[in-house]
């Protein structure tokens, strides 16, 4: 049984139920967007899907084997996680930073081989960062740093990517470049991506499926255009949205608040 299976998953914080009784399969070849308002549990869910949450009740299994039964090194070669925040306390080159994600593949005394170096260069190329290899990470802008973090996650060479807000801080054309790169990355082998995102229109255009959270335990999952509908998104985000269409393009936009009395 390939892919990530979630069954009867419940996630809580302190006194609130974020997700109640979620059962869902995330199959190979799919690109899932997790959407929902702030504090709805997107990061908590992604951590649970990565096997890093001790509080999750229910079961999550990958390729038919419960996450907690995986050896940590095997798991790191099967799924990669890109956290929302990155820490840079010390100088380091972009290449060295990206190459850290080759850790699950290291052998012997723990030094990278030429193959690891090549994988890091390929990942940088994929995101148009080839010229950044010898830059210091401390000198990068927020958006550049974010793309370097995404390149590091790709370099881990795990067939399942869990990305927490990979498009944050990016300008529009880099958001689209990254999503196109991820789409191509999925197409070339049996791989899948689960990412959280605030831009519902990018999600509708690039994701194949969506999981919508409302922060009160309710979830909707399915093909992206069946889930990110004006009705469901309006209910989840607590603000009326409408779908407009022009020349074959679609966009979810907020309804203007009536200004007349």
């Amino acid at each position, binding site marked *: 049984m390939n892919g990530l299976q979630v069954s009867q998953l419940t996630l809580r914080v302190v006194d609130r139920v974020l997700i109640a009784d979620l059962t869902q399969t995330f199959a190979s070849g799919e690109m899932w967007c997790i959407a929902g308002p702030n504090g709805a549990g997107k990061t908590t869910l992604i*951590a649970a899907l*990565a096997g*890093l949450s*001790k509080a999750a009740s229910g079961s999550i299994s990958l390729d038919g084997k419960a996450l907690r039964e995986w050896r*940590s*090194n095997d*798991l*790191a070669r099967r799924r*990669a*996680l890109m*956290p929302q*925040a*990155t*820490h840079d*306390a*010390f*100088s*380091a*080159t972009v290449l*060295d*930073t990206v190459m*850290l*994600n080759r*850790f*699950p593949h*290291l052998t012997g*005394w*723990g*030094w*990278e081989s030429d193959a690891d170096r090549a994988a890091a260069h390929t990942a940088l190329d994929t995101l148009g960062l080839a010229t950044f290899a010898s830059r210091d990470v401390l000198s990068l802008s927020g958006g550049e740093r974010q793309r370097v973090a995404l390149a590091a996650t790709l370099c*881990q060479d795990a067939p399942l990517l869990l990305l927490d807000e990979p498009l944050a801080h990016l300008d529009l054309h880099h958001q689209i470049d990254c999503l196109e790169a991820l789409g191509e990355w999925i197409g070339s082998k049996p791989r899948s991506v689960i990412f959280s995102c605030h831009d519902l229109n990018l999600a509708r255009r690039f994701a194949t499926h969506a999981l919508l959270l409302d922060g009160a335990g309710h979830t909707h999952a399915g093909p992206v255009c069946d889930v990110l509908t004006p009705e469901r998104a309006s209910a989840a985000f607590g603000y009326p949205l409408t779908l407009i269409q022009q020349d074959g393009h679609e966009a979810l936009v907020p309804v203007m608040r009536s200004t007349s009395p």
Partner: protein
Amino acid sequence: MNARRASIVWTVLGLAALAVFVASLALGSIAVSPLRVIQALVSQSTDVIDEIVLSLRLPRALGGFASGALLGMAGALLQVLLRNPLAEPYVLGVSGGAAAFALAAMLFSLSWWSVDAAAFAGAFLSILLVLGLARRELWRGEPQDASPRLLLTGAVIAAGWGALITLMLAVAPENRLRGMVFWLTGDLNGVAMPWAALIALAVALVAIVPVAPQLNILLRGDVAAEALGVPVVRLRLRVYLVASLAAAAAVTTAGTIGFIGLVVPHVLRLAFGNDQRMLLPASALGGGLAVMGADLIARTVIAPAQLPVGVITALIGVPVFLWMLLRRAP
């Protein structure tokens, strides 16, 4: 950084340390040729020169090397553990505990070996105190980044020891004050053969060098490290224990020599990068080299009088560090 470049760094530092080691045995009130030093080390004869080299200079040079190496490594480790470039071996209160107990032993004019024993007991108590108070950060997995709270816990305990030290200095009789101040500055005078520090150095290297690749990952944050298969909680506890016990062994041997644990890892990092696989052994070699060299200066510059080695490490460490730091500024 790759294995070959790291070995070049280690070889150069090792050769420099060896040169300073031979110089430490050769130079002093009676200068001896390097050949005579080697002869004293290998032959069984015991004339006056052999006696000076083997019983006075050799323990002192080895004590300087071992305590400097322990401090360099402890500093590099705590900078990783706390993800803070300003961290140093004394920041979590180990040296404060050691100093408070050692000064108390000196205040009651106990023998020299009991001052050493008291110093280690104080350091160990301080380590246990931080382990108990920061148990959530060190033992259990915390979802959020735990290093700021661990740093604050240690810093407050260090401040507490500082208050006790000041109190003892204030009430100490005049004739004991000089010895106490020398101890606080770091002094290698009268060091016996430093077996404990040398064994501690070997144990610390064996315990930490194999996990150096994981330490590189730990710097990226707890969540990222956990996701890459690094057992963060166990690793954090191991780093804390190795760094603290290394600092405790160094302080017990030579008092609180300052700046080595802060400056040596930084100088090496600025020169060769922040790869822990290279940096941890290099910090040990560099720290040992620095303290041994500083002690050579401390006992020769105004001979026959001697300065505490900590004065020299501070006087040299501060400008070297500032130069390295500002050189890189844009």
